[in-house]
């Protein structure tokens, strides 16, 4: 079904709102609209992109004619900007979980140097990553890295914050046993070498500070 609408003289966001309502009706496959301003055109371009329909426009006298067409079967509504094609994750939550980046902590310090300074630096690194909003898919801990989840570790809170933000925070079971930390660490946070390999092999990027 084709719909023709005159959206001239309507105050924002009416032009977008009415067009969106028309597109919600899946039987509408083509919309021809007259709009008043370039701003209207640009807003409808954005709407068309988000609804995964095509749009063309051309000036017509003092106004613009916009043509929106639904292409083929199953033209789905595009979700809020996705990480695959753009730089950001789900729009709904403010911090975006990047698909494909995994952080591997194989030791409980950051870089080489003075022991206490290096341990504190790891805390600073994790806190900075959390504040930046660039969240990894998962944080994996192995060997002395599992000590970061110990009851007396200064990193325990920031790792809990990562978990709350949607990041998988996991410690290798073998290592947890070896260092006697079974009682300290939540059962849900313990994983095995197989899962650790899976995460690392399928990740786009593995960071190992």
């Amino acid at each position, binding site marked *: 079904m084709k719909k023709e609408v005159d959206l001239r003289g309507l*105050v*924002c*966001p*009416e032009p*977008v*709102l009415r067009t*969106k309502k028309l597109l919600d009706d899946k039987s509408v496959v083509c919309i021809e609209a007259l709009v008043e*301003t*370039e*701003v209207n055109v*640009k*807003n*409808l*371009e*954005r*709407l068309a*992109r*988000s*609804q995964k329909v095509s749009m063309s426009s051309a000036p017509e006298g003092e106004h613009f004619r916009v043509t929106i067409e639904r292409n083929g079967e199953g033209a789905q509504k*595009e979700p*809020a*900007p996705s990480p695959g094609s*753009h*730089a*950001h994750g789900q*729009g*709904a939550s*403010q*911090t*975006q979980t990047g698909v494909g980046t995994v952080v591997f902590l194989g030791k409980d310090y950051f870089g080489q140097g003075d022991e206490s300074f290096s341990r504190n630096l790891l805390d600073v690194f994790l*806190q*900075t990553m959390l*504040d*930046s*909003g*660039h969240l990894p898919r998962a944080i994996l801990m192995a060997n002395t890295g599992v000590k970061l989840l110990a009851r007396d570790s200064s990193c325990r809170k920031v790792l809990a914050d990562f978990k709350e933000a949607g990041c998988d925070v996991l410690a290798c079971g073998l290592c947890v046993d070896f260092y006697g930390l079974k009682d300290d660490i939540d059962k849900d946070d313990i994983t095995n070498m197989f899962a650790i390999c899976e995460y690392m092999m399928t990740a786009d990027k593995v960071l190992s500070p």
Partner: protein
Amino acid sequence: MSQAPDIDSKKLTANIKAGGCAAKLGSSELASLLGGLSGKGDERLIAGIEHFEDAAVYKISEDLAIIQTVDFFPPLLDDPYTFGQIAAANALSDVYAMGGKPVFALNIVCFPTCDFPLSVLKKILEGGADKVKEAGASLAGGHSLEASEPVYGLSVTGLVHPSEMLTNGGASPGDVLILTKPIGTGVGLLGLKGEQLEAGAGSDLVSSLTELNDVALSVARRFKINAATDVTGFGLAGHVREMAKASGLVAEIDTCSIEYLPGVVELASQGFVPAGAYGNRQSFSDFVSYIKEVDLAYQDLLFDPQTSGGLLLAVGEEQSRELLQALKAEGLRASIAGCLIEGDNPGRVKVF
């Protein structure tokens, strides 16, 4: 017999093309209008048109300076009391952005008495008066006109110790930029008007719009703030650019670390973008570059004109995390917006 308009049920925003700070004249238009107007310099005017400061500041003595600012706009939502609250919070904000304390305010009113009952105006004025009272200041009068479209705002007078004045300039290389409120009010208000926001998101939007920046300033005072402004009509990108230019530095904005109002990213991606955002984009496009692919919705939100926005604070990196946590501890949805660095062509903004 002709029918009288049903003035009791007419919406405050009916026929308003753009409300709030989205109604303001654009940056480039203003620049061309204001150029050459300020005349002979008075050295006691220690902040003004130069460097796009938020308010005028006039030094009375070594210990005291007066801050003066004015802000008004058409309605941006239909409830008159809330409109009054938002317009007042917006006007008061410029005093906080200069580091001062508001002391009194004057109303500025335009009202079409043929289109709306006077009870609507009364509610607008009550909203404004209550907000001025909340700020600890007094409403001392004002001026009103019969006009074709409702407009409301305030002229606000504040006080500050000259050495405690905060300006746009004065940021140091390496300073972190901290934002004290989430962004997206222009987009959010369009969504609210079109009934596209869920109830929770709608009330978060209104809370953010009516919130004073007094708490944000008092927390900031516990730290060494190098530069400050509030984020309003030019959008975050525009105000960051002003701060960078005034401080002689280059800005980096991180779109991932900024807090956005609930629902606005999706609304922006669907085209609920106010005309002012396109205006800001045009005004500032020469100075903004994208370091990585940034989704259009996030770009639009950077240029989205903010009404009653938060403070933008430049603080040394070593204090930045503590300041952020201190703001959050007061219930503020603060976030890191980016940083300022040395570089060629100061006033440039690099967007990540």
